[in-house]
């Protein structure tokens, strides 16, 4: 960490505060717009404070659109994805870390390589496959593939499992434990921190995902928040900004809350995902 003298420090403070204001302003604008009336937006657009302060936008979201349903849909898809990715990836990561078998490292290299593949290349054949299976228009294409492991999570957990001392497993073996027991009783409990990191990022990616729900969800009753907001925004020629900002805020809120409660994990994870390549 850099140490500098006092007059310099003042400059650094001023710059940091100014930049922070710039970074935080869009948030304030989002919150403030969501509590404004349409009239204020047209008559006095520059006022930051809502005057009058109304919650019409939120009422409208929940009465004139099916916002609570979109919320539940998003929770459902995200929850199932978490379940799918975390169970399958931890088992696979344990397999890559604990056992010795031919071509293991070559296979792991293949796994790493798939992280580099643009989604656009696999997206079209996947769609055609799910279309053949009759899954398009259901949650299945979003959920079922997650039970086959997520590459980033497998990578993250394997890195961790590799650091677990072999002696732990040897001792358990002496007591007659089989591999499944070693996985559940020793490796998994030790991996709480990396699993939490993985869970956080999988949550973030799934909750905010736009492309997959856009391709696969066609029924208004099944929309996730990102698709619902897109449809609400493009549905009318004159967007209702208080409603759109209120909806955006509600969608971002769970992530912002998570961020404040587990900031360290977030930033460490961002750094790990940075170092992975």
């Amino acid at each position, binding site marked *: 960490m850099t140490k500098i003298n006092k007059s310099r420090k003042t400059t650094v403070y001023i710059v940091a505060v100014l930049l922070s204001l710039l970074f935080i302003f869009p948030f304030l604008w989002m919150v403030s717009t969501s509590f404004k009336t349409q009239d204020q937006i047209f008559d006095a657009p520059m006022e930051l404070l809502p005057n009058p302060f109304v919650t019409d936008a939120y009422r409208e979201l929940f009465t004139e659109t099916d916002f609570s349903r979109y919320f539940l849909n998003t929770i459902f898809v995200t929850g199932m994805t978490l379940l799918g990715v975390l169970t399958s990836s931890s088992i696979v990561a344990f397999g890559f870390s604990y056992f010795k078998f031919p071509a293991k490292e070559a296979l792991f290299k293949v796994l790493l390589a798939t992280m580099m593949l643009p989604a656009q290349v696999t*997206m079209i054949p996947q769609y055609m496959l799910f279309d053949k299976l009759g899954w398009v228009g259901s949650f299945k294409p979003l959920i079922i593939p997650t039970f086959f492991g997520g590459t980033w999570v497998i990578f993250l957990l394997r890195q961790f499992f590799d650091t677990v001392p072999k002696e732990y497993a040897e001792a358990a073996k002496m007591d007659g434990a089989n591999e499944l027991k070693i996985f559940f009783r020793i490796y998994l409990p030790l991996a709480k921190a990396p699993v939490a990191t993985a869970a956080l990022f999988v949550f973030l990616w799934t909750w905010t995902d736009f492309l997959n729900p856009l391709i696969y969800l066609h029924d208004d009753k099944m929309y996730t928040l990102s698709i619902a907001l897109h449809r609400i925004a493009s549905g009318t020629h004159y967007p209702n900004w208080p409603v759109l900002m209120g909806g955006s805020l509600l969608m971002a809120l769970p992530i912002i809350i998570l961020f404040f409660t587990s900031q360290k994990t977030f930033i460490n994870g961002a750094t790990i995902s940075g170092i992975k390549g």
Partner: protein
Amino acid sequence: MNEYTLKVRKRTFKRESVLGVIFISPWIAGFLIFTLFPVLYSLYLSFTMTGEGGHLKWIGLDNYLRAFGERDFWLSIKNTLILSGIGIPIAQIMALMAAILLNVRMKYQGLFRTIFFLPSVVPAVATGLLWKWILNPRLGPINGFLEELGFSGPGWLIDPAWIKPSLILMSFWGIGGTMVIYLAGLQNIPDELYEAAELDGANSRQRLKSITLPMLRPVTLFNTIMGIITSFQSFTQVIIMLDMDGGIEKSGLVYGLYIYTNAFRDFKMGYASALSWVLLIITAVSIAITMKVFKDRDK
């Protein structure tokens, strides 16, 4: 070693192999079904078109040749390259400067870092809508502010000349993720290097040029590559802000959007598959060039 132990070893080895493969089998199955098969099938599709009755017809290189003659194809490539070529370097410099700033030991350092990082966890759809609103020429706060200073602001997203600057401006709000990686890189630079330089009388600019930047080179390379991958595939915020055609005069028609509309609006799966292979090749070539530039500079 007698024959018996050898047999036992062989058996345990075999057992271990079988167990290992069983444990990783979900990924193997997923890889075959959701990655390998789609990759191969996509390559095949790129040489076909959907004929009568939905049957695939082999047309050789026609999809690729057609793309090269298509105005929108070149336009989307041009737009993507302009957005990346200008946006990525500026974003890198800004993220690095922010990281250096927030690496200074001071009060509220954690708070500042939080504020800078927070926008990068906001959902892309919400970011797109928010910036569409902020950049609103008549009612948005940016033009309102400019007006109060006596300027008349640009049309932003409704002016084809300002669409790209608008998208680049919005991308700066999300530099927090890159900044965090630079911060980690800065913290890995040993203090002794700076102390030694200080003893030699190096001023802060010299320290930046001869210690910080060279030591951060691998991080910069990594961030640039990640920037290229993300930028070449950019889609969500553009479709939210500009709709499917990429705005007025298609000034924001990026390549990701072009693939999407061909595949899922026009259902030209063969053509769109060819486009996706072109994307893969352009990305790989760009990464290779970036790596070479970084390597040559090292010499």
